[in-house]
């Protein structure tokens, strides 16, 4: 008998093994939900799948009686806009300062200590400041995401630039490149796929900051809705929302990965 560390499941078995935990959780949920509802039909803690379906139907497929909007999609749109803006702005700043710090020793000496210090500030601790300075509107939410993930992105980009073999940078200079040309033709194209990798890693944090900001001050958004209906113990809305946020997070990650594979085939091929 081979050691278990050397045994690999076949494709079908591997997929089945992966699916089993999900199915088990679903079964456990449905069974316990039924048990609780049999005892007390008005139980709110573990709503049945059909009542969750109904809640989603009301929020997603019928206009709200008060505003005439489809709340589910409005929430999704607002949250994704904030997330997109926050991540986009962070990516741009991270790229610019990461590359500058990585390539130019003077910039590094000047900015690196500051960025390290800023990255140590817990972003949620400055959220009140953001609300005071930027008001309760969209800006403070976007800024919170940016403050939360930009320092990580800058530092990661800086170290990725510095990991480029010095041979390449010297070679470019012997080919007549100025500092600027080294940046635009040698460094930038090579750190873009690494930027996407860093963004994928910071997505989780970005969602965390988004939902925190929405929970505290917002009039729509996925995080806002969850915290709003919490008052009424509306698990039939909270659970589908959490599931939906998970799906969105998975999709963003998947799309970024596909984008990188499409745009930078050389990067993924030479990694192996």
């Amino acid at each position: 008998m081979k050691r278990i560390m050397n045994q690999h499941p076949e494709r079908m078995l591997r997929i089945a093994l992966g699916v089993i935990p999900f199915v088990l959780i679903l079964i456990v949920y449905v069974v316990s939900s039924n048990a609780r509802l049999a005892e007390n039909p008005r139980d709110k803690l573990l709503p049945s799948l059909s009542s969750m379906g109904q809640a989603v139907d009301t929020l997603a497929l019928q206009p709200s009686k008060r505003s005439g909007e489809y709340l589910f999609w409005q929430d999704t749109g607002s949250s994704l806009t904030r997330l997109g803006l926050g991540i986009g702005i962070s990516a741009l700043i991270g790229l610019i300062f990461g590359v500058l710090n990585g390539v130019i020793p003077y910039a590094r000496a000047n900015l690196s200590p500051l960025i390290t210090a800023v990255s140590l500030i817990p972003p949620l601790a400055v959220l009140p400041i953001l609300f005071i300075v930027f008001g309760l509107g969209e800006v403070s939410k976007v800024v919170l995401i940016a403050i939360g993930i930009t320092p990580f992105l800058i530092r990661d980009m800086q170290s990725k630039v510095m990991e480029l073999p010095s041979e390449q940078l010297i070679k470019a200079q012997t080919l007549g490149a100025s500092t600027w040309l080294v940046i635009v033709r040698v460094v930038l194209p090579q750190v873009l796929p690494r930027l996407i990798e860093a963004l994928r890693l910071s997505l989780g944090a970005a969602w965390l900051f988004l939902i925190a900001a929405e929970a505290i001050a917002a009039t729509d958004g996925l995080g806002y809705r969850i915290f709003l209906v919490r008052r009424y113990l509306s698990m039939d809305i909270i659970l589908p929302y959490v599931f939906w946020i998970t799906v969105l997070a998975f999709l963003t990650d998947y799309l970024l990965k596909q984008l990188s594979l499409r745009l930078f085939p050389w990067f993924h091929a030479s990694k192996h």
Partner: protein
Amino acid sequence: MSMIEANNLWKEYGSNIVLEGVNTRVDEGEFITIVGTSGCGKTTFLRMLLGIEQATRGELLLNGKPFPDEPGEDRGIVFQRYSVFPHLTVLKNVMLGAEFHDSRLLGKLFGAKRHAAEQQAREILASVGLDHALERYPHELSGGMQQRLAIAQALMKKPRILLLDEPFGALDPGIRADMHELILDIWKKTGITIFMITHDLQEGFYLGTRLWVFDKVRLDKQNPNAYGACITYDIPVDRADQNTYETIDDSLDASKKLLTDQE
């Protein structure tokens, strides 16, 4: 006047002396091969020629003027690894030299200029035997082909000096022989001055017109970095015989033993 001149050249890092009292002259068109044990300053000397290290004492002159203190277009380089850009195809890797020169803002050429640069790159790639791989990325090339590409990149700038830092060290013997023919061919056709570091003494004898051995004349067993290295042998290779080859081989072995015993 000699093209390159070193007068009593020293290089030290704190108390660690790498080179001491290097004196030499090099004329245009020489092919200098450099051998020596690791830690004996060959690479440091090459980096000084490249412009990324400066002498602590003494002077290193290029055409009578102090050496530039950063890399430039007049001195091409091929390292053992990482000399090519992984995000560009073979053709674009070579075109880069022209693009850097003609487009200071974007580093990209368009229209007729692009066409001309492409044509020039194709010719150079054909001369190093890479004309069948123009659209491939470096990771799709073998080690030998990558080094051919690195040489082609350098040739695009028509440098007067070509620096080779163990360019064939990682290649299989058969491929290495092909590369020897290529580099000799380039040297003969262009009259370029070549400095090449190698670990392989035989390679050094075969390729160069002049062989340098970097070694430490004095060796302190307790403190191997107390004394620096200099050029202990400077031999016009066509006049060298089997005897010198063996003497050098023995002396290198001896100091290698001494140095490795320290570790």
